[in-house]
């Protein structure tokens, strides 16, 4: 579970990783692990800690698909949209997930339960179509199983 952002906790997380050679990505990951996202408020603190400009920090964050600026829902469902999964009905699954959650990719369901994100290959291409739910791998998905999983997460 993630915690709400506070400046003190943010600084604590940043300081714990500041010593690493090339600390930018480790700090961003640690912040997202703690708060579910890299909040706007963290940017000046990171810039200070690493002695780089805010614009640079912003540039790094925006380059990588993984980092969010807002906290996600209680669960994150990453559905594979790449070729091996496409070959096994991944597009139908994607449409079903959007419909079931009443969202587009990149959004959180209205009840705050599930954020749906696209991902391009999970290395589960031999068990396609596949997804990650809060880091747990799911394979050989079909519409029915995916809808059950979503219902389970919403509870």
């Amino acid at each position, binding site marked *: 579970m993630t915690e709400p952002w506070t400046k003190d906790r943010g600084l604590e997380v940043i300081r714990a990783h500041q010593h690493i050679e090339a600390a930018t*990505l*480790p700090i961003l990951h640690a912040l997202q692990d703690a708060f579910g996202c890299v909040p706007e408020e963290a940017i000046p603190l990171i810039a200070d800690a*690493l002695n780089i400009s805010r614009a640079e920090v912003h540039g790094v964050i925006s380059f*990588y698909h993984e980092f969010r600026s807002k906290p996600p829902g209680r669960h994150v469902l990453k559905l594979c949209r*790449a*070729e091996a999964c496409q070959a096994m009905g991944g597009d139908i699954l994607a449409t079903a997930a959007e419909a079931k959650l009443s969202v587009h990719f990149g959004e959180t369901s209205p009840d705050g339960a599930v954020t749906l994100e696209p991902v391009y*290959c999970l*290395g589960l291409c031999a068990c396609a179509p596949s997804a990650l739910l809060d880091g747990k791998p799911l394979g*050989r998905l079909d519409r029915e199983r995916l809808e059950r999983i979503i219902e389970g997460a919403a509870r």
Partner: protein
Amino acid sequence: MTRIYIPCDSGALAVGADEVAAAFESAARRRQIPLDIVRTGSRGLYWLEPMLEVETAKGRIAYGPVAIADVESLLDSGILSGGVHRLRLGVAEEIPFLKRQTRLTFARCGIVQPLSIEDYRAHGGTAGLRRALAMGPAGIVEEIVQSGLRGRGGAGFPTGIKWKTAREAEGAQKYIVCNADEGDSGTYADRMIMEGDPFLLIEGMVIAGIAVGATRGYIYLRSEYPHARRILVAAIAAAQRANLLGKSVAGSGFDFGIELCVGAGAYVCGEETSLLESLEGRRGMVRAKPPLPAHHGLFGMPTVVNNVISLASVPSIVERGATFYRDFGMGRSRGTMPIQLGGNVRHPGLFEAGFGLTLGEIVDDIGGGTASGRPVRAVQVGGPLGAYFPRALFDTPFDYEAFAAHDGMIGHGGVVVFDDTVDMARQAHFAMEFCALESCGKCTPCRIGAVRGAETIARIRKGERIAENLMLVEDLCNTMKYGSLCALGGAVPYPVMSAIRHFPEDFRRVAAE
């Protein structure tokens, strides 16, 4: 006490391996049967996962695919002594899909406990390192040159030459960087090794370090692999305790340490210079070459960047000799390649074999055709930048040059099968969209070309001025192919143009309807 093996590879976990293991544990407790459940990597026969193996006097007897509902009936059938059951597959090594392979790099994967250094040693691990220490740095480099090993990450550059360049380069600090970004869709060989035999990768990196005089190693792992991450963290710590990493590796006086760095969901960061930028904490913008990373790499120092499988191939080459390895394969593609079958295929899985099998043998014989039972229509080889092959080209041998001759590439060895329901205009559209999404933005042909390309294919799919727009796409592809700084923009013409050339009817569908 009977020992059963159940994989804990992500592919097996994705289809319920943990739940099956838990069901066995509780059923055994209820029946008061002493049972030793050992978790391994995967053998790579994914359509049979979760596949469990029972240790018997006749060898390991496999059963699969096992569902929770099968656990009671399996125990009733006396599987603990290899008993008969509808899911019984026989001795694992005798399953044709496994028996036909040449497992050098994947020799231990699915057999050993990934985090047990004792198991690793008992199954031949560290023999390569011992031989490497006896050969010395120059001897190792020569052995790798002679083996003919080419980079398994996609570009196929000779690994020995890369090492030689880095070895001869001057620098206060040298680095070995393992490219574990495995961004290519349809590929999972790196993941399987990291999850199933992580010490093999570590041993390969140590040997590389000794060979080029590098004392520090980094593994750049993609963030989409959380399970591999946990295993690597534990494996690096275990390797330190076992003195496989540290100030004096295996008492040799060589110093080598490894750090793990996790990416953040950018495909282009698998490109080696973008990866180095990312490791240094910046946006993953591709750097122009030269300078080569071997001269001017991580933090400006001489750096070897190698794919997981390239590095994992090293211990057995050093142990068994260059000639042994070079004798597998064909033409300029020497040794073995882990072919990864995925998508709509009856037998999806990892098949390690010497180069030279034809695409038809791989897809029809080994893969068994489609999972849907419909005809195979197209096969994408080499990831999202690889070409789509029609059946007419199924006699193409799996070999770097043979695929290049058909405007394709074998890349990292992914083979994704599609049945006759595929819309190839849609696949071409996706390739351009993916390139637009993942472009680092450094050069215009890719940054602008991919966006224009995707728009133009969208128009074709709507039936707008098809002939004219197809010519425009071809022009864009030529500009991208010859004008892009790296192979993201430079290779996306492969899937796009192969779709147009081999499946022209799909681009005229709307017009025909």
